[in-house]
């Protein structure tokens, strides 16, 4: 979830601190204060804010005037903008509404009301205050970035005690890998993938940890899973990188060539795809799927005659290959 940046505008520093304290209590950390509307307007133009809370009555320029200026600018048409006042009169409410106010907040500030308003706004804009767990995770990440592995590990382990999380296990695995404690790293990555079966990065890191402890088969298995996930989520570059890494582990892996062929085909590199598929065929000449994939390439190359021979072979290798039978049928029927 994205952190929310608040701009609070009030000439009364007590009121300014009061609302800041409430927002801090609600878990929001990015709070910026301003004592005048003109300064607030200048801040808005140099920094991106997610919400403005402005007092109505202020010397020089009122909150309402600030609202009007803000709404006049196309960039801020949808920016949540709240006006606060101790006594909203009906004309004030009408004026604020006409000027495009998001909501009105009555002073003195009430924590529950602020909480409710912010929650409604967060729901609409898709942002929310970070939870305690999120804050701890952030703390752990900061420690990790500063290479304070022990400190970070403590935070993450405490987080795990409170509730299991794939991301936290991944971070533990990462630290253990950095500390060259590969078996522990593998265990942490395994837990991460158990909690999130599509956690490609965790499979990838687990594969590398296996590689480090000299278990190439298991490394290949994990890396392949990572590549499959990347491919299915269309992160083709990541997939290609991993597949090439697998090839370094063992060049006789039929699935790697096949997957690389698929990636080339997706990029429109037909010749590259054919090269990989043909390599895959050398290793495994009876694999019907590869013949099917080669057939697809020839259809893409607008050569249905050659494609037909490959689909026919795929079907001969696997007589129950429904897809090959259907494509073959389509080629036969589509001959004009």
């Amino acid at each position, binding site marked *: 979830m994205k952190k929310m940046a608040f701009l609070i505008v009030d000439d009364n520093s007590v009121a300014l601190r009061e609302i800041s304290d409430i927002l801090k209590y609600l878990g929001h950390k990015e709070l910026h204060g301003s004592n005048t509307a003109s300064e607030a307007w200048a801040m808005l133009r140099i920094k991106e804010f997610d919400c403005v809370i402005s007092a109505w009555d202020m010397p020089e320029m009122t909150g309402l005037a600030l609202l009007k200026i803000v709404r006049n600018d196309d960039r801020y048409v949808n920016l949540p903008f709240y006006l606060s006042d101790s006594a909203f009169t009906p004309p004030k409410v009408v004026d604020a509404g006409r000027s495009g106010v998001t909501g009105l907040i009555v002073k003195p500030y009430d924590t529950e009301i602020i909480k409710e308003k912010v929650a409604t706004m967060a729901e609409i804009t898709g942002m929310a205050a970070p939870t305690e767990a999120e804050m701890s995770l952030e703390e752990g990440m900061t420690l990790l970035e500063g290479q304070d592995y022990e400190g970070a590990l403590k935070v993450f382990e405490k987080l795990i005690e409170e509730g299991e999380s794939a991301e936290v296990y991944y971070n533990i695995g990462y630290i253990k890998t950095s500390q060259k404690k590969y078996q522990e790293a593998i265990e942490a990555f395994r837990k991460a993938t158990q909690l999130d079966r599509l956690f490609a990065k965790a499979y990838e890191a687990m594969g590398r940890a296996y590689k480090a402890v000299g278990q190439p088969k298991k490394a290949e298995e994990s890396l392949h899973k990572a590549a499959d996930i990347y491919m299915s989520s*269309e992160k083709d570059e990541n997939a290609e990188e991993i597949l090439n890494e697998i090839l370094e582990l063992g060049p006789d892996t039929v699935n790697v060539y096949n997957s690389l062929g698929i990636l080339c085909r997706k990029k429109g590199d037909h010749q590259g795809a054919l090269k990989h598929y043909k390599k895959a065929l050398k290793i495994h000449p009876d694999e019907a799927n590869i013949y099917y994939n080669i057939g*697809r390439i020839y*259809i*893409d190359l*607008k050569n*249905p005659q050659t494609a037909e021979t490959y689909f026919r072979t795929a079907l001969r290798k696997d007589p129950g290959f429904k*897809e090959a039978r*259907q*494509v073959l*049928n*389509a*080629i*036969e*029927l*589509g*001959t*004009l």
Partner: protein
Amino acid sequence: MPEKPRHNKPDPAFVKEKILLNRKYFIAYNIARLRELLRYIPEEKLDLFHSIPFLLHTNSPDLPGYLDDPLTPHGIYRFFHSGFWEFAKKRLRIKREDVHTFVLKRSYIRGLYLMGSSGTLGQTEYSDFDYWVVIDKDSLSETQLALLRQKLDRIEDWSKETYGHELNFFVVDLEQIRQNDFSEIHEEGSRTAQKSLLKEEFYLTFIMIAGQIPFWAVLPPGLNDAEHRCWIETASLLSDDNFVCDDYVDLGNLTSIKREECLGGVLWQICKAQQDPVKSLIKTSLVAHHFFFQEQEGLLSDMMKKRFPERRLDSYLLDPYALVFEKATRLYDLMDDKDGLDLIRQCIYLRLTGYPVPSELAENSPKRQILKRYVKAWSWSSDQIDRLQSYPVWTENEKLQFEDRIINKISFLYKLILRAAGKPEPFMDMASEDLAVLKNRIASHFKKKPGKLPLCSAYLRAKQDRCSLSIGCRDDSSGAKIWAVYDHTPSDCADNKAALFVAPELLRVLGWIVLNRLYKGDPSSIVFQRVPKSPISPKRAERLLKALARFFFSNEMPRLNYMRSDPPWLKVFVSLGTDIFAPDNVLRSVDYLVQNTWGEMFFCALDLEHIENDFLRCYETAKRAWHYLQKALPGESEYRIYDSRAIEDTTTTKTIEDFIKSFRESGAEHLKAREAQGPEKTATGRNGRGRPLLDLL
């Protein structure tokens, strides 16, 4: 005035080279489309698909579609070049020496094309096959045209009976297609509603089955009409081993969709919305997109043709429906209509999962791939996905509310186009009778009237052949008896919310079932719960339902006619004493179900408690029936009196019938008397009767 060519005639060698290259692209594209079509056809229907072109090519007493008339037109151009011929040869084991018997002196069908959802992301295992049978009308006599239609009807019937699959053949004349005139191929009301819109749909979605290849598919995209003609003229002068001009047919060019057509197109979609609201919203959104943004964004068919070379096998990219979905969504993006965007996305999701009866999508299928991509791009939460995934278990009410939301959005688009089209002639491109029919059809579906029975959801309607219902009776919160229809399991009866339809009267509930065709005569498809203290036993209720179904749908389809804005009554069903305990067998109430020529069905009840004797009760019953019958079209209406009471009493039925007969006769006498008097001149003259109506009260 014909357009002047923009430039000189293209070089013949260039034309030939370009056409042959484009032909290669088109064939690969066509194969990819056929592959998708085969993916979604159930195995048991493959034979049907394979044999259709052969049935049109031949007219043999051993094959379906045979007509015992030597004039019957049959034969497809270049059929021996098509894969379907190779298939037929294999399947029927046609020997080489017998091939000549299939060579015809003359082939009447210039091309056979599949259009619509076939071979697209919109196809499901239940999708109809819509074939366009292109002929040259000038080469057929009126008799031959009628024979061809008859032959095609026979093949349609055979498909329905043998495979349970809906086939539709639309016979289209070459010249008429060129002029975007589809007046002879469409349903009532749509004759002139869609012209270039239909052509656009054809070019966007057609699959080449057999016959001549449309020139459009092999000419470069973006040609204006003059250039299109010029290319064809040049091509027609070419002929060598590699290029035979007769392989191709000119079905006309398409450069734009007339804005005036869009309003009729939307009206047509409102009509269709009753069958499949999701499909209609998608199509309406596309029409609106054409209306507002065509100039900036161009035609979809042209866009598709430009990308023929890119089409790949097993891919959702470049699927005609993927383009339609993209444009439909874009409309709401461009209009900044958040609600519309949300709704169209839901509709696209449901359409891809097989709405109105969604099913599980095969792993790695193009439909699944594209859904995955959409869900990601739309940032949908798992709750949103779960909600749509669970569509089949939504209550009937929830489904109807969703349909209402869609209809409202279609109406909104209609109003938007109407406002933008301006006055005074927003429908200038449409025949006035078609406009009247469309308006009446829309009113018949959506207008609420007292006593009118509602239509069920598209889900139930689509499931009607596989529908299993149970009918029970329970007390409502005020203690009154209420009849309810439930889906399938009797245990649902415990849950009030699960009822598909409720009403205080049994006849109203049964009428709703019959109107929505949820009962097709199979007694095992409906379970009547035994209701303690019910005036009517399950057996009798079942008998009543059978009688209703036979009466209203004995001729399969009622003779619907939307020409008149005040539809006359067509059928009147009179049920005596259905819901009331009458130990003395006295007739205390009569229920009526009446249907008009728009197909609308109404329920009304007559309370006879206060009437003192049987004779007068019969009179009142007959009078109400006559109230409807007299407003029916002469000779077209019919009625049925059904005695639901524990002890059937033929005297009562006979007396009511006698009364109706006497009303009818006096009405007829009156007509004769009027004819004798000559045309009416004054208002008082209208009251003159040959014989006074029997008035016992």
